[in-house]
């Protein structure tokens, strides 16, 4: 899930110009849970990423995909010595999206605030608040991410978009580290890596509001937490990322980073067994081939839109199909920030449904290089 923080194009402005020293990801990182669910302030970027599929408890035909994310963007490794409550060294950014798979609507909401007590910030263990921010302008209340003792509770509201989420999760499977010891490489460079773990299957319930209608929902989510510094290689411009939950109880995470020529520069993956055992996948063990494209009428970006994924070692050949074509998130707060983040279903070559997941496509249709 490398990629997500890189969405912050505006972080081009926030490099280590003022003697900022950040820690790179390390192979020998010593994990400590639950503390590592909270912010790790020595790293430049960090995010908590939730995606999932939900179904109305009252009307099972009503299905939704959702995304809820908090980003921490480190501006400075230490708080400047200033007599002001606006003093900060982090920005908090939140993205949330709901795809109404029945009506075909995709709603997106966002917040960007400097991390200060007035507007948002990051809690410290054992305070249950992991991250919070004010709701978007025009909406009363807050967006929050809290530890519930087993997993996470999170909520968001946006009156202008007419959407809200209030969800509780608990793990159906144990936490997995992505990459050996959670050291997830993103390129050949020495710092091109992040510390990365996931809850690949979280039982989820709560309420979802769309256009003022409040729906009790239940479903499954995928959670990623990642932190690191300078993760992208010099000529990497974007990435494709897949989180797939198979009906047989396995999960697959795949990502590949693209260079300016559109070629795959670096790729990795993880296969999680029914029992929660991980097998890290090298590029030779799998392939992803897109078979269709979709052009955004709003941004003009052309995204791949249907894929054939093959895992040779597992004798697995699956087709990934977007539930909706338009699940593009377009930021109004950050210039030139748009990406495709959408619910997908997994089918066999014959069209049989065998799972669901989420796909993220970043760096299409823009020359702005993500700054992670």
């Amino acid at each position, binding site marked *: 899930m490398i990629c997500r923080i890189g969405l912050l194009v505006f972080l*081009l*402005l*926030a*490099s*280590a*110009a*003022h003697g*900022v020293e950040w820690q790179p990801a390390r192979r020998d990182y010593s994990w400590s849970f639950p503390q590592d669910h909270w912010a790790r302030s020595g790293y430049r970027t960090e995010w908590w990423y939730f995606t999932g599929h939900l179904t109305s408890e009252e009307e099972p035909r009503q299905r939704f995909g959702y995304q809820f994310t908090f980003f921490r963007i480190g*501006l*400075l490794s230490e708080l*400047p010595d*200033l*007599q*002001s*409550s*606006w*003093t*900060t*060294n982090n*920005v908090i950014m939140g993205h949330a999206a709901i795809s109404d798979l029945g009506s075909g609507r995709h709603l997106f909401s966002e917040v*960007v*605030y*400097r991390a200060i007590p*007035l*507007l948002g910030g990051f809690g410290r263990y054992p305070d249950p608040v992991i991250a919070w921010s*004010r*709701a978007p*302008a*025009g*909406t*009363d*209340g807050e967006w929050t991410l809290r530890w519930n003792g087993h997993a996470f509770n999170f909520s968001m509201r946006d*009156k*202008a978009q007419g959407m809200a989420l209030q969800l509780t999760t608990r793990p159906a499977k144990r936490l997995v580290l992505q990459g050996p010891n959670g050291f997830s490489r993103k390129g050949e460079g020495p710092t091109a890596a992040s510390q990365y773990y996931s809850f690949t299957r979280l039982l989820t319930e709560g309420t979802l509001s769309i256009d003022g209608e409040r729906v009790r929902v239940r479903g499954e989510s995928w959670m990623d937490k990642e932190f690191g510094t300078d993760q992208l290689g010099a000529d990497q411009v974007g990435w494709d990322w897949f989180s797939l939950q198979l009906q047989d109880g396995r999960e697959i995470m795949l990502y590949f980073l693209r260079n300016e020529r559109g070629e795959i520069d670096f790729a990795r993956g993880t296969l999680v067994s029914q029992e929660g055992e991980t097998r890290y996948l090298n590029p030779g063990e799998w392939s992803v081939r897109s078979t269709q494209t979709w052009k955004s009428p709003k941004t003009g970006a052309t995204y791949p839109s249907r894929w054939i994924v093959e895992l040779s070692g597992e004798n697995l050949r699956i087709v990934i199909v977007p539930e909706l074509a338009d699940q593009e998130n377009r930021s*109004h*707060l950050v210039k030139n920030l748009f990406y495709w983040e959408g619910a997908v279903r997994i089918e066999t070559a014959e069209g049989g449904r065998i799972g669901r997941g989420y796909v993220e496509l970043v760096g299409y249709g823009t020359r702005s290089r993500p700054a992670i």
Partner: protein
Amino acid sequence: MTRYFVRSLGAHLRGGRSLYFLTIFGVALGVASVICIQIINRNALAAFRGGIQAVSGDADFSVLGRTPTFPERLYPEVLAEKGVAAAWPIYRIDVAVTDREAFFLDVVGFDFFAPVRMPWKGQRGDISNALAKHGWVAITPQLAEEMGWAVGDAFEVSSGSRRARLVVGALVDFQRVSPVASRKLAVMDIAQAQSLLGRRGQIHQIDIQAAEGTDLPALISRLQARLGPSVQVLTPEQRENLAAGLLSAFRLNLTALSLISLFVGLFLVYSSTQALLVRRRSEFGLLRSLGATRRQVFGLILGEVILLGGLGVALGLPLGYWAAEANVGVVSATLSNVYLLEEIESLQMPLWLYVLAALIGVGGAVAGALFPALDMSRKDTKSLLAVFTLHERVGSMAFPLFVTGTSILLGTGLWFWLFGWDWRPAGFVLGIALLIALPLFTPFLVQRITGWIRVRGFGLGYSLKSLGVRLQTTSFAVSSLAIAVTMLIGITLMIGSFRRTVEVWVNSSVKADIYVSTPSWRGRQSEATLDDDLVSALAAHPGVTAVDRLRKFFVYSGEQRISLAGVDMGLSGGETRFPLLGGETSEVFRKVRDDGAVLIGETLARKAGLGVGDRLSVFGPGGEVKLPIAGVYSDYSPGGGLAALDIRTMNRHFGPGPIHSLALYLEAGQDTERVVDELKARYAGTPLRIRSNRRLRERIFKIFDQTFAVTRLLQAMSLLIAVCGITLTLLILARERISELAVCRAVGAIRQQLFWIFVGKGVGMGLLGLGLGLVGGIALAGILIFVITRAYFGWTIQVYWPWLPVLQQIFTILAAAVLASLYPALRASQTPATELSRDDM
């Protein structure tokens, strides 16, 4: 006829150079005076508007404090309101650039992560530098060029008694957003602005963008209700209207004065047109006898006048712009020092000003020429070719005109007495009536005065007597001079009285020996404070016996912005600081000291209709505060006015805060200037403005004089127009009476005699204009002092006679009249006896 107009034009222009020049000059000066003032008036507000656009360009409206700052905790409240699409906080502060006299930067502290459009393409590293590099500031390229600063250069500024080192981090061209934005705008992160230059926890403004389709008035109402009365939610237009309200009296007075200049200019145009027509009378007669219709003659005259008006506009526009440019500095100083608004840094001249100039110039010229042209075109051929007898008709109308003038004056006076007292612009109606009546009085008075003169020889008596004979020509010159003198004397008396009144007021209220403030303090600067330690150290300085502390900021009383001053009301002998207009001094001050009462300035009392026993309602951080009014004192502050209370009462209602300036009283026998030098040496590293009593007074009067600088320019322009009128009149007389002059030469008059006769006529007109103008000036001064300044500024001005300036002006006018007579006198003296015609025999 068109062909004739075109072909004859060159010959006419060559033949009557001086007349044409004076007509064009008259129009040009009239246009220039109006355009100059309109440019200044417009740009005074444009500077304020430019500041709004540059800082709040994207905002639909803004939250502003009713006190200078308000708590930043209101920001999330704004964000939470439905219909708000975006909001961003602003911390705004004026800082003084060290080592540059009165050079201020308008530092705007933004939240760089708020969704606000900045005219700035940041470079890699800018944001982290802006957050963490102490003093990082983005300045305009214009300022960088002016100061010789480049990115990375450091400079020092002060806010109150705090110094800060700022570093140029980036160049931001605000003038791309708003062309009239100040080059002195500087942007830094809000945390840095608060920490280095201001106060923690407080902000000045929240700019807001409404969501598309939102009902703006409803959203403003909801926000106002949510945020409470300590702030106000205003659209950019409302903010501009508030500024316009502050400046309205200032702008109105300048406009009125410029219109007087225009009025005087119209007299000149009238006179010059008449002169042109006199000169070409026989030509029109010839044209008529050759078959030209009256309409054609009228068109011919009008065409020529329009052309002359156009030329006057072409000359008046650059002249007006130049005059505005020459005076923008002093007006700008007035705006920032007195009205606490943005300085004017560049002058913009919109299209409508060109249109206005054309309307004034050409319209004025046509208006001035209309009656003479109509008169000339209506004459039959015979009378056009006969001797000119225009004056006789005026002579017969002199008394009816006088009666009309008297009726206008009496009628207006009666109207004012009965109904006009409560109507604010009533003073201007009185002034206009006076300026209309004066010219109507002129023919009768000239006739009467010259009628009393007995001619004993070919000298001064003859000169003066002949003025009464050529009444129409003379009356216009005398009238225009009288109006100019009225304006000159009236304003001189008003300013002189005002200055003397302020002197008396300053003598009683500025009593301390030394005054200490900071370079960045310009009245509105709540942050320009003195550190507590510094105040203690200054109070403990050897020789200092008492200290008077002042904490001052603006607050809102209803919709009116007023200044609130907190001082130690228990200071021994301190009562003189507030000269009361009534009441028992000791009891009034006891109430202020012990009962939490307030003193209000006369300006505020008059504007708000408040008096002793009423309550002054102001908005503090906790909402509305009602302070009992114990007394009213003499006050000459501009704007909404001033109220003073005990500093403990102020701290109770507005929260404790640092003070803004300090007055030190020295032991008897101390050399004040020496102590000032000692303090300056001791606090050389601290940004302080330490002035002795004498220096402070000088500063007060420097600002006072600056305020009236443009007024003096308008006076000078009017006088110049009027003096041109004398020259013009004498040229007319020299031409009109050429036969009479030839007779004089034929009967033995020598050239010197004719020369001095004409100089005598000039002096005579100067004296008559002066006499009438003196009376008019005294009346105008009365209107200005007792009606207009009271209605618009709320000041009570004591009448003093500034003898010396008035005498100087009298001599200047007479000297100008002599100078204006020299050229016509020379022309007249050169008239040969051969100019006698058969008609004169």
